[in-house]
């Protein structure tokens, strides 16, 4: 009975905490500007199923992709077990799903095999991240928390899988002992190898191990859920909405700024006196200086980023030693929206710490981008770092007139003679007779 109460308290407590945390993230994402991505839901479902569920872009790097799918499938399927744990926990039953009979035994057996595969994959990933010097895991932005975060999760998965297997091993030993509570038989393709380790223990100790693993497993999962919100592992949830709301248009098409269209139309229309109209369609800012100037899609992108660095490793600027890293752009946006979100929570809408995104993303990074779309192509969950880079450039150019000098020259040329170079428009057809 006490066990059940403790269980319920934990379950409700952690779930409530999780709800609060997710609500805050949703609020933070909604700090972004509205954009409409509701059309074409059929294509959106398809994209989500293909890219998030089917992980179609992960396998572009076959080994990592395959192991990632193993962990992912393992994680999802083994979590079916969690349903049972929750029912058992609340009602004080033991292995309640065992009424399934032989199917149950088979299920547990396959969970064990998956658990073993997940274990192996995690060990491989840990080695790869920490021993093999793969450049994308060693860049500047991965120092400190991001690196710890990645390792923590892998270690955590390993421990969790061990607990699961240990629980089954002790349980099956208790069954063999005809211990009163333990009556459900199931297959133990993997956990049987743990038996030499604990086979000599007394019934009481085995029960202790079984219970401890059980509690560890469920508390671990509840804690994991709440850990997600500060981790790159939020992608296991956000990858789905993120791919659903993917940009479905040609990658080369940049979002039109309607606010500018209004202004330009006014300028081009000879019948309107541009100084005579005052309307409120003019936005307070052209382009993006801070997270609130970005769209909610871009902010959701930032929260979804897995920090895998595939974008950065394909980026031509990054490959040739420039400081631009599209992954860092995404991480900076997430860090900043966290700060702004917390600030607003504390101080209200007017929160202003005198800082902006441009304090973490430098001008040098922004101007190094060739707008080649290699990053968006590489991203396994369709994140678009380029759109953020362009919005920040828009702010620099239109609000601060802070384009590099050479670009200011081409702007002048285009404006005055319709070409980025200093040629006269009247010479435009000269090539014909040259």
């Amino acid at each position: 009975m006490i066990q059940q109460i403790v269980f319920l308290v934990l379950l409700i407590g952690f779930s409530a905490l999780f709800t609060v945390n997710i609500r805050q993230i949703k609020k933070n994402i909604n700090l972004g500007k509205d954009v409409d991505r509701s059309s074409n839901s059929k294509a959106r479902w398809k994209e989500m199923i293909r890219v998030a569920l089917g992980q179609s872009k992960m396998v572009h790097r076959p080994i990592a992709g395959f192991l990632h799918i193993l962990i992912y499938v393992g994680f999802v399927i083994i979590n079916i077990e969690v349903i049972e744990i929750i029912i058992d926990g609340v009602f004080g039953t033991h292995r309640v799903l065992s009424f399934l009979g032989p199917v149950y035994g088979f299920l547990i057996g396959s969970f064990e095999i998956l658990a073993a595969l997940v274990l192996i994959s995690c060990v491989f990933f840990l080695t790869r991240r920490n021993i093999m010097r793969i450049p994308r895991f060693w860049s500047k932005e991965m120092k400190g928390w991001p690196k710890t975060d990645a390792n923590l999760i892998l270690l955590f998965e390993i421990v969790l899988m061990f607990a699961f297997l240990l629980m089954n091993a002790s349980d099956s030993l208790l069954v063999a002992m005809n211990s009163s509570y333990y009556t459900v038989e199931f297959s133990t393709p993997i956990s049987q190898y743990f038996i030499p380790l604990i086979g000599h223990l007394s019934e009481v100790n085995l029960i202790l191990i079984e219970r401890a693993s059980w509690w560890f497993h469920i508390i671990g999962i509840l804690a994991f859920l709440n850990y997600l919100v500060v981790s790159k592992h939020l992608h296991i949830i956000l990858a789905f909405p993120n791919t659903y709301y993917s940009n479905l248009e040609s990658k080369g098409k940049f979002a039109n700024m309607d606010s500018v269209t209004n202004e330009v139309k006014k300028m081009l229309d000879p019948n309107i006196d541009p100084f005579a109209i005052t309307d409120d369609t003019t936005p307070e800012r052209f382009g993006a200086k801070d997270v609130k100037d970005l769209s909610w899609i871009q902010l959701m992108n930032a929260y979804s980023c897995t920090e895998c660095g595939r974008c950065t490793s394909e980026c031509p600027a990054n490959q040739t030693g420039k400081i631009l890293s599209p992954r860092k752009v995404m991480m900076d946006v997430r860090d900043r929206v966290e700060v702004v979100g917390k600030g607003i929570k504390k101080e209200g809408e007017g929160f202003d710490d005198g800082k902006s995104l441009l304090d973490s993303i430098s001008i040098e990074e922004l101007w190094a981008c060739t707008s080649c779309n290699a990053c968006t192509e590489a991203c396994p969950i369709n994140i678009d770092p380029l759109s953020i880079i362009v919005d920040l450039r828009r702010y620099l150019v239109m609000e601060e007139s802070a384009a590099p000098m050479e670009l200011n020259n081409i702007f002048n040329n285009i404006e005055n003679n319709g070409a980025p170079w200093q040629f006269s428009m009247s010479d435009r057809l000269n090539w014909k007779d040259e």
Partner: protein
Amino acid sequence: MSQLIVPTMAELMAKGEKADVLFWVGCAGSFDDRAKKITKAFVKLLNKANVKFAVLGTEESCSGDPARRSGNEFLFQMQAMSNIEVMNAYEVQKVVTACPHCFNTLKNEYPELGGKYEVVHHTQLLKELLDDGKLTIEGGSFSGKKITFHDPCYLGRANDVYEAPRELIQKLDAELVEMKRCKAKGLCCGAGGAQMFKEPEKGNKDINIERTEDALEVKPNFIATGCPFCNTMMTDGVKNKEKEEDIQVLDIAEMIAQAQNL
């Protein structure tokens, strides 16, 4: 060399005629000495295939691509709207261009501002002409040569056009060799996003050198391009590697024209 026939939209209109397709030449194609050769080669092919086309001539202005990529949305939209006004006045239906940047901008970004046309890249039009039997392609001096194609970002990744240029190259009776990074994974030449017009940021290498190294790895006789800016970047890269004796950088239109001594 026979005289190029390049009517302008205005001339045709004065005669009460209309072009089937507008050839959008672009700034590089109009003013850059290297790119002008591509423009002329393409016109030769259009003339040979008897395509009823016209150019805007002095009425054409920068598409606005470099302005938009570098964040000057005002300038971009000014350019776009005045170009659209001109094209709509001529009731343009179809546009062809040899510049992937103009191609992308006109195709994807003009519609929202009122310019709705069928826009194709010159390799796509050439492929169409070939399929319709209006154009023949022979190998000539390219027969049996090794050619590698550098995908322009704004043709490939941005618009998913990968096959038209490749099919044309294969028609040259040449061996098409792919670089290790090609198609969707093709590496940028370094010119996009208005980088063409400025010094690169501090780094340890220029992007065009990195890309030229990709090309050199497959030991081609020719590097084929489909973009005037890629062409410049790759030509500079080949020079930097002192390989200009062995490797020529040519636009696909130039190759097809040269193969038949046009």
